[in-house]
């Protein structure tokens, strides 16, 4: 079965041969180059579609996943389109450095990872507001902030809205990540930034554990660290927006951090220098995350609208809400872990 699949994928001639009979591929005798380039994707898609249905008839199950193919193609096209426009500087970023076109171009790739690699099972999406602000609060894990990307995609699939993630200050001082995270909607976890974004009606994602969460050793996985000082609760109370707790299972296993070279981290100015079974042993190959099976649960929103006006200045209330949110997430994690039979198969 697998042999057949690889053969059909790697030899395009066979696919062409099969589908040349379909009318979609009957090209005019002297096609101009322009019409060829514009017709080709459609022709290729319909050819692959024919091939996929033939293969499904033979095998009795989906051999070629059309959705994935579509994602790959649209990623290629959006990136090409982006390159043309970015080459002339003809685009706009907002004051936070967010570039919606850039984020949209990456979306198919993220969706491919979301659906095929980590096979994310997202539940409770109905809690997300279709308009107006909300503060998403999630556990943080996996060395690099990839859980943020998966949550953002889940939100985008459900509501067609972009998520603005608050990132740890440390990532702002890192090369590449500093601009990449901003371009895709991230901003620093500064109170001013949070209030500004919530004030303009955005969905804001915060990881109160911060680098304490991403940098924790593998043996302590799914044990929540301290949720900062509850600053995010204060922001939600000030902006009077609902808090939506999120529990993410699966991200802890993508980079099992078995060591932390603190002296090196201190020299580089990092909060931790991770060692995984493959990093830095295999060099860049060690950056490939493991294909764990993920589940993301969005829990019932904690509403803040009915609290009295000075609630944000009441530290006792802030800390009790903080604990409430943290307990919801921890309980969610335990529940999801209970349902999970295998790390990689789910």
């Amino acid at each position: 079965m697998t042999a057949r699949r690889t053969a059909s994928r790697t030899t395009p001639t066979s696919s062409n041969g099969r589908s040349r009979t379909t009318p979609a591929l009957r090209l005019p005798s002297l096609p101009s180059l322009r019409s060829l380039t514009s017709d080709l994707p459609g022709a290729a898609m319909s050819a692959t579609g024919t091939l996929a249905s033939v293969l499904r008839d033979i095998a009795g199950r989906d051999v070629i996943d059309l959705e994935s193919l579509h994602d790959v193609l649209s990623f290629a096209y959006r990136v090409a389109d982006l390159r043309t426009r970015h080459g002339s500087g003809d685009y706009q970023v907002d004051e936070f450095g967010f570039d919606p076109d850039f984020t949209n171009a990456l979306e198919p790739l993220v969706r491919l990872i979301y659906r095929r690699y980590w096979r994310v099972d997202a539940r409770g999406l109905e809690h997300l507001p279709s308009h107006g602000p909300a503060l998403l609060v999630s556990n943080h894990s996996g060395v690099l902030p990839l859980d943020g990307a998966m949550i953002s995609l889940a939100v985008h699939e459900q509501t067609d809205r972009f998520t603005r993630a608050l990132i740890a200050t440390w990532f702002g001082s890192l090369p590449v990540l500093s601009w990449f995270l901003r371009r895709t909607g991230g901003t620093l976890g500064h109170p001013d930034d949070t209030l500004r974004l919530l004030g303009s009606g955005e969905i804001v994602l915060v990881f109160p554990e911060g680098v304490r969460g991403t940098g924790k050793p593998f043996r302590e996985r799914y044990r929540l660290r301290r949720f900062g000082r509850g600053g995010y609760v204060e922001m939600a109370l000030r902006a009077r927006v609902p808090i939506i707790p999120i529990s993410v299972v699966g991200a802890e296993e993508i980079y099992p951090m078995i060591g932390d070279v603190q002296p090196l981290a201190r020299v580089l100015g990092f909060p931790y220098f991770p060692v995984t079974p493959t990093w830095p042993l295999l060099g860049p190959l060690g950056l490939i995350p493991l294909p764990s099976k993920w589940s993301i649960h969005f829990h019932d929103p904690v509403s803040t609208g009915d609290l009295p006006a000075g609630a944000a200045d009441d530290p006792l209330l802030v800390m009790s809400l903080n604990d409430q949110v943290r307990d919801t997430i921890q309980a969610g994690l335990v529940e999801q872990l209970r349902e999970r039979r295998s790390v990689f198969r789910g």
Partner: protein
Amino acid sequence: MGTTRRVLITGVSRFWGCHLARRLEASPDIERIVAIDTEAPPLDLERTDFVRADIRRSTIGKLLDALGIDTVVHAALIVDPRRASPRTVHETNVIGTMNLMAACSAPDGPVRKLVVKSSTAVYGAEPDDPSIWGEATPRRSAPRDPFTRDLDEVEGYVRDFMVRRPDAVTTVLRFANVLGPSHSTPFSRLFDMRVVPTVAGFDPRLQFVHENDAVSVLEHAVLDDVHGTFNVAGPGAVVLSQALAIMGAVNLPVLPFVGAELAMAMIDRAVPLGFAPHLTRLLQFGRVVDTTAVQQRFGLALEHTTADTVLAYARDRRVRDVVRDDVGYRYEVELEDFLRSQRTGQNGHTGAASKPRPRRARSANGSRPRRTRAKPA
């Protein structure tokens, strides 16, 4: 409505002071304009009285008294380190401001209004900064480089003045980096290069203010009474790679992200760009300020967004490329007149891509047909 009649402008030998003087000359409300500096202004000024004086001398107080100056515009702050030696920059910025503030705050003195040109550099540029600086947002860490420390002190002296003279109208304008055809700044020199060194792995958000807008805001602050501190920058932001793409320059990420200041200092020896440490940090971490207040209070004075400013600079530069000016751009009256005639000749080409809005006959000399004035909020 302002009560400004007799204005004193410091730093008239440089772009800000002399362009402001020219604008104010066109205003009939202004009775007298006195400009002081240690060097003569580069533009021909018609009814401005130029006095060769040093703001570091205490004679300035006597001058204010003798002339009955009611409004002082402190535009002498040097932000471009290439213009003078570090020592002169420090002396002019800190000691000059201190002395000028002392002269202005004399309890029985004639001064009723103070307008200070400051810079958004006062916020610094660090990786853990808030994304958008409001006028009241406090810095998280003390300034690292001498220039920013000086700027901090300058604003400190101005705050002292506000305490000592609570009745006076004090306007502090923190300008973002200025871009425009007639003013050479570190960023304009950077954008003029074909290959631009950038910090590897960093693509900062930047803000610029068009030189005409900068002068308009200053002028507005003189003619109207606008008390307070304002960030002055084109609304919105660009990222460095975008600005370079608009300029058609090659982005060469050669500066290491650790020790970029040192590497830039070495490049500066070969190509004198004037990128002092505080500007190199800006090139690495970027800075965006909140422009809500300035848009509300100064309204029409800000014509260009940051993106417009960069686009306009790229267009003006194309004209300049045709005119060929090999010796590095300095303000030249004839050339500027020629550029101006080009601009009025092809009306509208400076703003073709931006959205249509009422555009006055733009000119660097300030002899504009009408005044734009925001409604007092």
